[in-house]
């Protein structure tokens, strides 16, 4: 069990800046993030795209903003837990939170701060009948162990780097790889496209122009039905189907925590940015209140006000001295970058 003042859910820009504001009031943080890196949408959706509306920063990319926030919060030593989805939350008799993650981590936290953006990034599920029944066995959204796919018949769907990279990597171990994509155009490294086309010409990969429309009604998976662009339906024998259509955001287990929602966003007040559950705060894109704007800078503001209230929640008997980083000797001492 990991004990912490604050558990932050989500390592997007707002979750990261929350570490700073909480650090100023001497609260330590652990951050749970479903992706394998910090930055949230900034690093997943627009790492190379410019952002122009961060005060004092005329322009920076999503990745640059993430990097600078990581640098800015460095002095507070936040502990990151990547690739983990927060699943279960329980209030203890001591008014603390026990939080469990998908990977089996357990936290004992005084306060929970949800900074989960539009929810947790999860693979896109194509609308193919019965697909949910096969998930985990016949349908996988990521390749964990290449060896587990040795000798299998694999159908891969998609036209991005993941689809192409895995088609290239797996054709050597798999019994057969069929790549299904609706166009001859790919969103992938030109070199990968060239290699795939060569393998297809040599008969080592089946490349089908079309879309996957059907699976076995019940497990185990034996074939994927492909509708070709010409309109024909063919059965591609398959033990495993790998759909690669990128990521989407789903609210996930947060929906089960007893919070009040408005159209998939958590209702908060604008004084504390606290939810209807005392001790659980929500900041950034995930929250909603009258006048809410989904802007990074709004999330930063919310983080500052939240931190004041998180302090009062965790240290009810202490007075909170408001200080400026520019003039406070004690704050400056904390902020000296190593």
């Amino acid at each position, binding site marked *: 069990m990991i004990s912490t003042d604050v558990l932050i859910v989500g390592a997007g820009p707002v979750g990261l800046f929350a570490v700073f504001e909480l650090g100023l009031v001497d609260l330590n943080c652990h951050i749970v993030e479903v992706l394998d890196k910090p930055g949230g*949408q900034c690093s997943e*959706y*627009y790492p190379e*795209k410019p952002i122009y509306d961060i005060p004092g920063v005329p322009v920076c990319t999503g990745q640059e903003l993430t990097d600078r926030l990581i640098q800015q919060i460095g002095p507070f030593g936040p502990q990151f837990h990547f690739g983990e989805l927060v699943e279960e939350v329980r209030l203890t008799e001591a008014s603390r939170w026990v939080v469990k993650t998908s990977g089996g981590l357990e936290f004992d936290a005084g306060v929970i701060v949800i900074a989960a953006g*539009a929810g947790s990034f999860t693979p*896109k*599920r*194509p*609308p193919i009948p019965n697909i949910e029944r096969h998930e985990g066995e016949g349908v996988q959204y990521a390749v964990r162990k290449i060896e587990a796919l040795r000798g299998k018949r694999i159908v891969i769907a*998609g*036209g*991005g780097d993941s689809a192409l990279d895995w088609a290239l990597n797996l054709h050597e171990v798999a019994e057969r790889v069929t790549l299904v*994509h*609706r*166009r001859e*155009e*790919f*969103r992938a490294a030109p070199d990968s496209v060239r290699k795939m086309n060569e393998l297809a010409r040599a008969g080592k990969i089946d490349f089908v122009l079309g*879309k996957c429309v059907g699976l076995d009604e019940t497990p185990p998976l034996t074939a994927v039905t492909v509708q070709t662009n010409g309109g024909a339906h063919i059965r591609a024998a398959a033990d495993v189907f790998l759909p690669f*259509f*990128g990521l*989407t*955001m789903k609210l996930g287990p947060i929906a089960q925590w007893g919070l009040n929602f408005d159209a998939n966003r958590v209702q908060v007040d604008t004084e504390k940015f606290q939810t209807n559950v005392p001790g659980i705060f929500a900041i950034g894109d995930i929250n909603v209140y009258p006048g809410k704007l*989904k802007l990074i800078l709004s999330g930063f503001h919310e983080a500052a006000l939240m931190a004041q209230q998180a302090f009062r929640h965790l240290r009810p008997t202490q007075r909170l001295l408001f200080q400026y980083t520019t003039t406070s000797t004690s704050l400056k001492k904390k902020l000296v970058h190593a």
Partner: protein
Amino acid sequence: MKLYVTDREGNEHVVPAMPEWPLMECIKAAGLPIPAECGGCCLCATCHVYVEPDWLERLPGIEQDESNTLLEAIAARDNSRLACQIRMTGALDGLRLRLAPVP
């Protein structure tokens, strides 16, 4: 100006459309469930719509960005477009489209 938008249950809605607005924002403003997760940055393909074939040729062409992101749209078809990449003009008054499935 208006759009005719069919939701995922097959119900058609008359959606008021403002000149210059991305179609995605018009659909969202009407309260229809279009996720548009990335907020119109042409990155997530969750404002995916099917355009009634008669209208396809009247739409502005597909830029490279949209074409790339459409590859990550689930259940894409020949009449697939991203509603964040099309801006409303008088020529599109009465456009008919259908919301694609949510991934």
